């Protein structure tokens, strides 16, 4: 299976997962593909009892420019944060730090267009989630597995220096 086909398959499944996580109700909001990717990463954890929040963070960013999201966590809960990007060939990393900037990551995974980080907050406080999306257009252009993949034809537009990102979280 080519990476192109995998990308399309993943997007369709991410869209379906987003629908399922929306509670089976009508989805009024514009479907944000980066968030759909983050929700796809969250799917196995829902089965483990994590409640995935509907409210999320998303936007566009220059590749390589780190993003910092502040969020209130409660000691006694366990959290997963999942980040996603739908840009073909882009990769995303997510990490979490306390108010002193110390890493509080317990485990994580990274699978190209989505990644996750888990933490057990040592105290109830504001924490900082760092998201970095990497994309090298020259490298992507030379990637034989992305040959023939035209983002513009896929409705995401030509590369203009920005890539999409989304961040979701769950607790239990």
């Amino acid at each position, binding site marked *: 299976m080519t990476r192109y086909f995998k990308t399309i398959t993943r997007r369709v499944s991410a869209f379906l997962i987003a629908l399922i996580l929306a509670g089976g109700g009508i989805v009024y909001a514009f479907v944000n593909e980066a968030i759909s990717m983050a929700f796809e990463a969250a799917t196995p954890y829902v089965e483990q009892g994590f409640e995935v929040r*509907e409210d*999320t963070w998303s936007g566009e960013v220059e590749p390589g420019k780190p993003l*910092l999201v502040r969020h209130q966590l409660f*000691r006694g809960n366990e959290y997963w944060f999942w980040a996603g990007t739908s840009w073909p060939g882009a990769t995303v990393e997510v990490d979490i730090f306390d108010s002193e*900037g110390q*890493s509080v990551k317990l485990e994580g995974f990274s699978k190209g267009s989505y990644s996750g980080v888990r933490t*057990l907050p040592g105290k109830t406080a*504001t924490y*900082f989630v760092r998201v970095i999306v990497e994309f090298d257009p020259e490298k992507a252009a030379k990637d034989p597995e992305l040959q023939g993949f035209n983002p513009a034809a896929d409705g995401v537009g030509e590369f203009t220096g920005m890539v999409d990102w989304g961040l979701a979280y769950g607790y239990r």
Partner: protein
Amino acid sequence: MIKTFPHDLNQLFAGILVMASVSGFMLASGQDEAPAKIDLTNFPGEIVEKVVVPIPAEIFAVLDKLGEPNWGSGIELPSGKVAANDRSLLALTFGGLVGEGFIAVQAKDAEEIQKIGREVLKLSNALGLAVAVRPHSLSIIEAAGDKDWKRVRDELDSTQQTVRVTMEKLRDEELSNLVSLGGWLRGTNVVTTFISESFSEDKAELLNQPGLISHFREVLEMMEGPSGKTPAMRAISVGLARLESIVSGAEIISEEDVGQLRDITRSMLEEFYYEKIDLEASKAAN
């Protein structure tokens, strides 16, 4: 002063940490390690402005782990005093009702949840959002009938999110933020009530949320037009400032602090959700 936690909670965390570090080692291997520390004072990127307000269920989940409160006693539906022409108060009340729904889910009270589901629909009608909210409201009622508590929680979160997104689409971001404030306030009030009844430092630590209080203060300060300057909104603004003065910089939130937080949040809710209790009159009557 070194803060200590109850023995059982310490043991629980220690156990989880050991398991987590083992599985973390396994999962993290083969990928780039995160830096052990970053400089937050000189962050070389972009700070995301958006604040996601935790839903009351996140705090309730911890409170349940620390000893199950009598959630049923915490349900108290609003008095129906909402000024139908004041959209700011309607938005706050809407958020408060969603918060009420989360309390009723903890209590596993299907009847109250269904009542709240109907009230949510009524209020969304007054806000002109009934079309968007009706499917959620019906799902809440149905899931409560099925005693599917997780689905009720998900639907309450979705309802709030749908209302906020719809308001933002209508360029009504102020109202969207007020929905979050209403829910947070109702949740905080019930949490402070339960913690006051059975105080522990562990439970009180849940109220350490200066970042959220500061966010809500900014939201009210940024409000434009006359709706941000009504006596009710001014009282809520003053209430937030009082909450902030108690929580900010507090190393430990004391029992007395919790009592104050409970009374302040109650008086703030009385600006839009509950009837005002005339303490002087009730003292005189007694």
